[in-house]
């Protein structure tokens, strides 16, 4: 009943062995690149390349078909709309663009573990951490909690739905969502207490939870790195 939570498909093809950061960088550049190019002569081979990459993953055909049904609806509708409202040439360009992106993204998604992608993202976030807007430890905690609680929320949703079906109620979204949200809010206290009890975020990144801590002004923030930077600057 629980949905499978990753598109990753274990394997040992060249794409599987390629480094996650390279794959994601190429995908990012391709995502920007295809929107800068209009000519089908360039986009055509790009789409072909993406298709070859996807086929090189050697997905079982059945599974591949399942992954492609969603994208293909988009792939069919968007160029069709472009052909109706604009010209056939635009339709070809748009179709090839989307084809390249969707196929390449699927190839990368199928061959890269979610944990590897998250590692890359965390590394990408690290420069932002210096601006103090992002706390990589908190992001990591949030991601792992979310992954853990998606199946949990799914079960709760079905529990509530069944309980209401048993009472002859069917499908009022308000009646479904209020109990779901309230249950989630209630469990947040317990989960936070459990996380704190395990000292999960490293002490440096954690807000100290003590009697008067809330009213007290925030502690002076880590002078150590700033000091070190000064040393570097002077020395």
């Amino acid at each position, binding site marked *: 009943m629980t949905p499978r939570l990753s598109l990753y498909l274990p394997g040992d093809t060249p794409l599987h062995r390629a480094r996650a950061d390279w794959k994601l960088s190429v995908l990012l550049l391709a995502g920007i690149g295809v929107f800068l190019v209009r000519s089908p002569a360039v986009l055509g081979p790009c789409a072909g390349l993406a298709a070859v990459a996807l086929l090189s993953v050697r997905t079982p055909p059945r599974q591949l078909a399942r992954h492609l049904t969603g994208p293909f609806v988009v792939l069919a509708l968007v160029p069709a709309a472009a052909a109706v409202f604009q010209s056939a040439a635009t339709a070809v360009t748009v179709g090839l663009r989307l084809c390249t992106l969707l196929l390449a993204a699927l190839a990368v998604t199928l061959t890269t573990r979610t944990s590897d992608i998250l590692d890359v993202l965390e590394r990408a976030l690290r420069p932002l951490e210096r601006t103090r807007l992002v706390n990589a430890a908190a992001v990591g905690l949030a991601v792992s909690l979310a992954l853990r609680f998606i199946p949990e929320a799914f079960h709760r949703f079905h529990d509530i739905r069944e309980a209401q079906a048993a009472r002859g109620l069917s499908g009022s979204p308000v009646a*479904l969502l209020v109990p779901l*949200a309230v249950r*989630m809010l209630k469990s947040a206290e317990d989960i936070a207490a459990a996380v704190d009890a395990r000292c999960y975020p490293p002490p440096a990144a954690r807000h100290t939870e003590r009697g008067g801590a809330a009213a007290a002004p925030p502690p002076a923030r880590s002078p150590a790195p700033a000091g070190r930077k000064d040393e570097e600057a002077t020395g």
Partner: protein
Amino acid sequence: MTSSHTPRRRAARRRMETKDVVLIALFCAIIVVLGLVPPVDLGVAGVPITLQTLGVMLAGAVLGPVRGALACALVVLLTIAGLPVLAGGRGGFGVVPGPTGGYLLGWIPGAFVTGLLVTVLATRPRSRPARQAATVVACLVGGILVVYALGVPWTSVSTGLSLRQSTVTALYFLPGDAFKAVVAGLVAQNVRQAYPIERR
């Protein structure tokens, strides 16, 4: 916890506590699940409707602007990481430059504005129907106006349709989204009465 009831000055400038991170993750999970479950049949204009965007408005309205926006940002992060977290099992980096990418990214400011408007409009009025109506308005503005403001131009850049045409495409989804905004408003108001938390 007593801390959730003591009013604090400059609450927005406080650092993230574990509970905030947990709430963000839980509402991210709710948004994902609302996309996974088979759509509740609303029968509006024959458009298949999932409740996913309802989760977005709910996050803003229940958690408040900052945490609501962060819950949506977490969904975006999971999407980019290649998890099939969007409605219909979509996911992966390809979603972002695709035609619906703007709507996905629009969730972040959308939830923020929803939360902000609920704080500004819905905490003042004394009467229950007035608060209810204010919450619904907040969901309509944040969940539709703001999200479409990013989504429509994005579609037009991504697909080459003109702005007017992508607006027409968006109008197709408007009845369903409006319905969801009303439901989100009702749910949020009920949740806030059943289990009030400090909003930020």
